[in-house]
């Protein structure tokens, strides 16, 4: 192998190519300079350490709980998770990760053999590092949070662990059944907290949020847009649909926001950003928070435009517009995921629930939208849908204000140019007319002169003969007395 690199003429220090561990094999930057074998070992060690730390925390909580329980109850020993059970779960989690990695590599994963699984193992550490760091951070925060709840905190932790364990074995169930399990879990924990531990409503709500965060951070990758559902297909369909509706103007939707006002267009941009951001969150509650943020920006935009509180119609129309403009990724998957795995009390009657419901309405509206929904004739609608014409070209006044300022300026300039062109044409035609007039005038003059000339023809008389001959033609000369003759007088 060393020969190979020399032959290629690349000079690399041998030590740089070798595994950092010094085992003699070659390392790979993808495995942080280790060879695949040593990397697996190193990674395993790090994982193991994490598991150990995690466990120690859990164990401490457990111990504290048992002590508290023992002191209050005397004999009854609290049932605890055994270490081996915990270990088993962790190992299972690891092998599960491998299968999800394979998911990324395409549909063939189902037919995967043992050998493929082995090969797929190699990239898993780097790909999953980010996600697992996040998961671990959430776990630590969760445990920290539960400490403030004392005894109920330990109870919650135990319940969550049992639930996650149970969910692991239910991976083969349909997503609806898994959702049912999660909903039952939320309900049971909530009931236990209220009835057995007498937790106040405020603390209950906080605890439920934290529980949701903890369990859903862990379940996300298995239950978001699962392969067993049509979710992905629906996502693509909605996305395509929204793209096909690019020509819809705010006027057609009667959107009560005026984007010519800079603050309003600012709000619109923020609302779009929020709704797009939803897809990046893992916890249903965080996704809901994005929808709520988006809604508040919408309300502000309406408020600035119209200075009155937004009604349900105003809000829905604007939300539809925002969704059409933003075309947020994986809309259906996100809606389904939230519906299936969000804490139900938040979704059913809370403010977040109201905005979420409106988002569902907006998507349903977009899916079914037809000519009547936009007050268009069927012919126009079909022409716009097929891309034959665009409403923008026909009525420049209704350009959607989303075109950027540069493009707007360009349209304005084009407008000016066409106006100039018109004026130029008028000038040219006037000039032509003037020219014609001039020609007519000269012609007229010429004709007049001609007429006059004809009327009064010019007779040019022959030139007078020389003086000597002056008399010759003078007829009357004959009648003249003969010229006086000179006379001589004698004197």
């Amino acid at each position: 192998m060393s020969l190979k690199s020399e032959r290629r003429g690349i000079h690399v220090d041998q030590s740089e190519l070798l595994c950092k561990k010094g085992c003699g094999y070659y390392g790979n930057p993808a495995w942080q300079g280790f060879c695949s074998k040593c990397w697996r070992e190193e990674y395993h060690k790090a994982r193991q350490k994490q598991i150990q730390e995690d466990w120690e925390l859990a164990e401490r909580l457990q111990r504290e709980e048992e002590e508290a329980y023992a002191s209050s109850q005397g004999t009854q020993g609290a049932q605890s998770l055994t270490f081996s059970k915990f270990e088993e779960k962790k190992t299972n989690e690891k092998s599960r990760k491998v299968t999800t990695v394979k998911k990324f590599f395409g549909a063939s994963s189902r037919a995967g053999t043992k050998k493929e699984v082995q090969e797929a193992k190699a990239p898993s550490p780097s790909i999953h590092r980010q996600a697992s760091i996040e998961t671990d951070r959430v776990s630590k925060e969760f445990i920290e949070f539960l400490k403030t709840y004392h005894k109920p905190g330990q109870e919650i932790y135990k319940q969550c662990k049992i639930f996650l364990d149970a969910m692991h074995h239910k991976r083969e169930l349909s997503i609806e059944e898994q959702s049912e399990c999660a909903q039952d879990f939320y309900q049971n924990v909530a009931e236990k907290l209220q009835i057995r531990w007498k937790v106040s409503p405020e603390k209950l709500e906080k605890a439920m949020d934290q529980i949701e965060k903890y369990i859903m951070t862990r379940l996300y990758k298995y239950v978001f847009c699962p392969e067993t559902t049509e979710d992905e297909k629906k996502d693509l369909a909605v996305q395509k649909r929204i793209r096909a509706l690019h020509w819809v103007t705010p006027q057609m939707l009667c959107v009560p926001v005026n984007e010519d006002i800079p603050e309003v267009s600012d709000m619109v941009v923020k609302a779009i950003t929020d709704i797009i951001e939803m897809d990046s969150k893992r916890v249903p509650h965080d996704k809901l928070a994005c929808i709520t943020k988006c809604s508040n920006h919408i309300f502000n935009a309406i408020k600035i435009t119209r200075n009155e509180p937004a009604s349900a119609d105003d809000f829905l129309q604007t939300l539809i517009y925002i969704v059409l403009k933003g075309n947020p990724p994986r809309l259906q998957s996100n809606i389904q995921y939230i519906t299936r795995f969000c804490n139900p009390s938040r979704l059913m009657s809370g403010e977040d629930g109201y905005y979420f419901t409106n988002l569902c309405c907006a998507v349903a509206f977009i899916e079914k939208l037809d000519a009547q929904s936009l007050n268009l004739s069927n012919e126009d609608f079909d022409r716009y849908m097929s891309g034959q014409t665009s409403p923008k070209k026909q009525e420049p006044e209704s350009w959607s204000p989303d075109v950027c300022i540069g493009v707007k300026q360009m349209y304005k300039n084009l407008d000016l140019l066409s106006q100039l062109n018109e004026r130029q044409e008028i000038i040219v035609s006037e000039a032509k007319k003037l020219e014609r007039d001039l020609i007519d005038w000269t012609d007229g003059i010429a004709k007049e002169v001609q007429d006059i000339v004809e009327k009064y023809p010019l007779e040019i008389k022959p030139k007078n003969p020389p003086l000597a001959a002056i008399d010759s033609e003078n007829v009357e000369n004959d009648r003249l007395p003969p010229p006086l003759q000179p006379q001589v007088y004698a004197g």
Partner: protein
Amino acid sequence: AGGGGGRSFSFKVVLLGEGCVGKTSLVLRYCENKFNDKHITTLQASFLTKKLNIGGKRVNLAIWDTAGQERFHALGPIYYRDSNGAILVYDITDEDSFQKVKNWVKELRKMLGNEICLCIVGNKIDLEKERHVSVQEAETYAESVGAKHYHTSAKQNKGIEELFLDLCKRMIETAQVDERARGNGSSQSGTARRGVQIIDDEPQVQSSGGCCSSG
């Protein structure tokens, strides 16, 4: 009963009715005591909440306005699923708006059965002279479909407190009947998923009705 054994309920109530019958005016009057206020500070009137204390029972009322334009009609079921109550508003000077209410009732009963508490509300009674819907007819109709009828004026603030108070009482009753039917104690999963949250809460949490929050 005041004090002891304070329970807490969360209810979702949807507002339905034709445009301009006064839905928004009714809720704004109820939650913020405002009518056609030019200096309105409310950001939105589509989702409003009110906290009440009815005989020691705490009620969290969430009032959902619904988009009423004809083109949004098909979205109705998405709005009203899981609601505990519905307020169907018509304008007493507008016969058509009463017909619309009848359509809503049919649809709601079909989709949600008898679990939902229905209120039919004749609004704008300050315009009694222009009345086009007879009191007799409206009340008889309401009774025939198991709904309660109310007369209100958002303008003059008449009948609104009674409407909401009465509705809350009926919703509490329904929730309790529900609970008993399921056998006390650990209630079935359906309850929470329908948004009725029954909580044994500590007595210090909130002072009695009248306080309200929005947006």
